[in-house]
């Protein structure tokens, strides 16, 4: 196939168009919102998993079973098409964030839990010996240290989420892939439209990878926390990769 001579111009035109820019913004927004709510869901599930009560742990197990046992694409379509039959009508954006966040929560729970577990028993003993209640130990001693540990794996999750968000094009949310596809189907210039979208994706992931690296370096500078970070990276780098 011969590349049309005006291809670079058209790609540049797409890249600078308001429509593509807004679509990229939408991709970013969906990813950030889903990641945020995914972290909240993951933290709740992780705390349930660490609970003393069997009933609470069962809730966590059921959640993980449900959301890890079905494809995220299925979850998206389910939320978008089934919730309205129960009278719950959400915008495409809300459906996208809801489904991605619930799914992300299942993977984030594992990361949060490994972070919580990485805080040694001795730290908890020391906190309890000072007279803290269990929730205070969690709030003031375990979680602050666990959060530092999980920052690098969460960075990985964010990059994964940026790519995963392309799935929401199936429920008609005007994100990057949908816009590229629509643009191309109007004039059959797939090469140009998809190249423009790809450049946006690469740009966004590149920026976030370097942000992540910066955070990791900052953590590493803090001695022991850095080595903890390293060991956690090894343990969780591939968590949540396969869906």
């Amino acid at each position, binding site marked *: 196939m011969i590349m049309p001579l005006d291809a670079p111009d058209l790609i540049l035109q797409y890249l600078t168009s308001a429509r593509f820019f807004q679509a990229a913004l939408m991709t970013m927004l969906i990813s950030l919102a889903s990641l945020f709510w995914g972290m909240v869901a993951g933290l709740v599930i992780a705390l349930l998993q660490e609970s003393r009560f069997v009933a609470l742990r069962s809730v966590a197990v059921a959640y993980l079973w449900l959301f890890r046992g079905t494809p995220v694409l299925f979850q998206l379509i389910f939320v978008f098409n089934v919730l309205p039959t129960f009278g719950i009508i959400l915008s495409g954006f809300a459906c996208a964030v809801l489904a991605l966040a619930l799914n992300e929560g299942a993977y984030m729970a594992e990361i949060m839990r490994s972070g919580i577990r990485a805080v*040694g028993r*001795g*730290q908890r*003993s*020391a*906190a*309890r*010996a*000072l*007279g*803290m*209640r269990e929730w*205070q130990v969690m709030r*003031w*001693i375990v979680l*602050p*240290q666990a959060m*530092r540990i999980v920052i690098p794996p969460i960075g990985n999750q964010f990059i994964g989420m940026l790519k995963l968000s392309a799935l929401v094009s199936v429920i008609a949310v005007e994100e990057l892939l949908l816009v590229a596809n629509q643009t191309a189907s109007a004039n059959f210039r797939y090469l140009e439209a998809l190249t423009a979208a790809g450049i946006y994706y690469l740009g966004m992931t590149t920026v976030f990878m370097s942000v992540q690296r910066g955070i990791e370096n900052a953590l590493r500078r*803090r*001695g*022991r*926390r850095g080595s903890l970070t390293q060991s956690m990276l090894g343990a969780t780098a591939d968590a949540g990769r396969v869906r």
Partner: protein
Amino acid sequence: MTAGTEPAAVLSGTSIHKQFGSLAVLRGVDISVARSECLVVIGPSGSGKSTLLRCLNLLEPIQSGRIVFEGKDITNAGREAHRVRQRIGMVFQNFELFQHLSALDNVALAPIRVLGEDARTARERARALLTKVHLPDKADSYPDELSGGQQQRVAIARALAMEPAVMLYDEPTSALDPETVGEVLQVMQELSDEGMTSIVVTHEMGFARRVADRVMFMDQGEVRYAAPTSDFFGSDVPERVARFLGRLDV
């Protein structure tokens, strides 16, 4: 401790039994420390010394026996156990300073979060306590920037910040480089001289001789011998104790 009088025990345990699964770690231990007294507990590793300390401040549940703190039976404190622990300071072998907090905040955290003390007051007191353990210029350092001996002294200040009625030291110098052992023992001795009640699990016989009012020897989950310090290091001790002391080259 004045001779002749019988001061009330600050903290005591009576026939404490503790099992981990089928392993009996404590087999009817009696222990008691009077106000301002320094009780040193020695014995081979695995004799149950550390477990005993953890049982006394309710970090470990016991199978039977009785624990009394300031005249109150706390054996079944249950949900109120955290209130008891607020008044019992504990220092750990591995310091266990909170890694995410500066030395100052390690000391000030519990007064602020547990006692609800105003943050400014708590930090001022923390600063004073760091001075007391001879670390006035390390307030802003993080644990990983401090030597073992410095970390352990911050840990002592952290425990003191709760104004405990008794301090429990669980092998406080066992994880230290020999050069820094002295500075930690010195702080412990100063506190004891000021009248702080303490139970010290240690292998430092020099400290026991200098500072302890009484010494207790444990082996295989039982108290084998307990005596005032001068008697303990005298000539007339049970053979098992003499052998243990001999091994330590006292």
